[in-house]
């Protein structure tokens, strides 16, 4: 059922050696490949068949659900709409991700539109990796969208990673935070060659006592380009922070635009942003430990994107 390419892609995007345990839904070339549900986690196709609805029962603790997408069909641009309903008081991990294997001159792409409704006091960790490989020269595109709605006291921790091989990516992240809710987003993107990536983020701190922290780490190699936009808008007493760092190598180009909007006098919003080459003192330190210049660069980049 899973061929060697599928297994390689699943390993890269979801750390899976084969089929996962527990609830999962694997989508291959725009179609369902395999699905399992569990006692607390239900997965069903949505009404028009364009995606899935994952429903997690209230109080579900320490369970996970894998929903990887793999593409290896030339010329296919797969669009999927997935909804996640996280029940009150639950604590779960969702592992998503898309792997593209391109073997021809024809383009391949995927757009995953994910909407999360996280119930009162619930916690969700969402891990998403994007990766593309293969000998083909067709353009590989990944355009993910995540929309998050946090109810009172809910927590969402999101790790969004693009680890290589993707020619074009347009990411949109939107979140609305209820009272005393917490949103943590860490985004890591590496581009090289002539790749382009854009990440546009809008976080609305609507509830009193809500908190959000967005961390973005970008490495821009070769002639690649990355743009990062992040807006935090505070409508209540809340705390929000944006930290965006970009390392430029070769002829890389980067726009980083953090934006803070306070619409309440008790809002506390901060940001820190940096763009630059690898600091020479970091390189010299690692070289003084016996690493070559190239080894030092690799270790610094690995750590930065870790």
């Amino acid at each position, binding site marked *: 059922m899973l061929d060697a390419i599928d297994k390689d892609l699943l390993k890269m995007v979801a750390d899976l050696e084969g089929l996962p345990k527990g609830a999962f839904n694997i989508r291959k070339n725009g179609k369902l490949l395999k699905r399992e549900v569990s006692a607390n986690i239900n997965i069903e196709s949505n009404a028009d068949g364009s995606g899935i609805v994952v429903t997690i029962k209230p109080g579900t603790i320490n369970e996970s659900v894998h929903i990887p997408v793999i593409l290896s069909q030339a010329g296919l641009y797969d669009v999927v709409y997935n909804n996640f309903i996280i029940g009150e008081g639950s604590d779960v991990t969702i592992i998503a991700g898309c792997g593209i294997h391109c073997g021809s001159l024809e383009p391949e792409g995927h757009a995953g539109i994910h909407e999360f409704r996280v119930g009162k006091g619930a916690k969700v960790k969402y891990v998403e990796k994007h990766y593309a490989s293969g000998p083909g020269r067709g353009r590989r595109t990944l355009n993910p969208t995540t929309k998050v709605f946090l109810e009172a006291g809910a927590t969402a921790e999101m790790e969004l990673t693009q680890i290589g091989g993707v020619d074009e990516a347009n990411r949109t992240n939107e979140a609305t935070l209820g009272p005393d809710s917490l949103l943590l987003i860490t985004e890591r993107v590496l581009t090289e060659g002539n790749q382009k990536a854009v990440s546009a983020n809008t976080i609305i701190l609507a509830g009193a006592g809500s908190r959000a922290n967005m961390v973005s*780490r970008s490495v821009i190699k070769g002639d690649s380009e990355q743009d990062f936009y992040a807006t935090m808008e505070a409508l209540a007493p809340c705390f929000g922070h944006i930290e965006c760092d970009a390392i430029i190598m070769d002829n890389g180009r980067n726009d980083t635009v953090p934006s803070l909007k306070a619409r309440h006098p008790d809002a506390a919003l901060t940001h820190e942003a940096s763009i630059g080459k690898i600091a020479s*003192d970091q390189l*010299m*330190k690692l070289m003084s430990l*016996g690493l070559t*210049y190239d080894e030092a660069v690799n*270790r610094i980049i690995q*750590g*930065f994107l870790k």
Partner: protein
Amino acid sequence: MLELKDLYFSVSGRNIIDGMNYTFEKGKFYSITGPNGSGKTTLAKLVMGINQVSSGSISFQGKEISSLSITERAREGIAYSFQQPARFKGITFRDLLSMAAGTDDEEMLLALLRRVGICSLSFLDNPVDAKLSGGEIKKIELATTIARNPKLAIYDEPDTGIDLWTIQPMVRLLKREQKEHGTTTVVVSHNRAFLEAADIVLMISEGKLVYKGDLKGALPMLNDLSVCNYRKCVGDKDVGCYR
């Protein structure tokens, strides 16, 4: 074991290191002192390869090293502790210590912590980032230098950011390393504790070696140098400002 011959380092035609000749003996503890801007750190950086010599030679254990890279000098057995250690994002003390020691074996790393007197094991997984205090990052810097098991260890102002109560234990640590591992130790410092610990005190003024000997002999010169050596930089071409 380390020989400097007719060593010059110049910026814009001005000699920052001005014709230095000296031979460091194996296993000895040296303290280099002198006024701010006299060329102490520049000299230390020339030995490590962080700055490149303008002319002259540096030989280490009989081998000319002045054209070698930092990496090659590190592999020859020279270790360097930076005055302002680098801070990273996503690299932990464990990562740096593993790189320095060439192993990620837990037992060996713990043995290194005991050797340098760091008691808290949780410290090992701390990121070496901007959140660390000045004292903490200097301890990490010292530990990674010692973890190299160097033949020659250079410490540039190791007491910067260290509290008064930690300086004596630090001096004892470096002396112990000298004694137990035969490490030739060079400490750039203004701190009397390091000058007292040294077998030989070297004093540098205006890029020249002006004194070599014990601390007692150095004290009158140190007193003289401590006054009236403040000067104003004159424009961005004033090489004195780069010292």
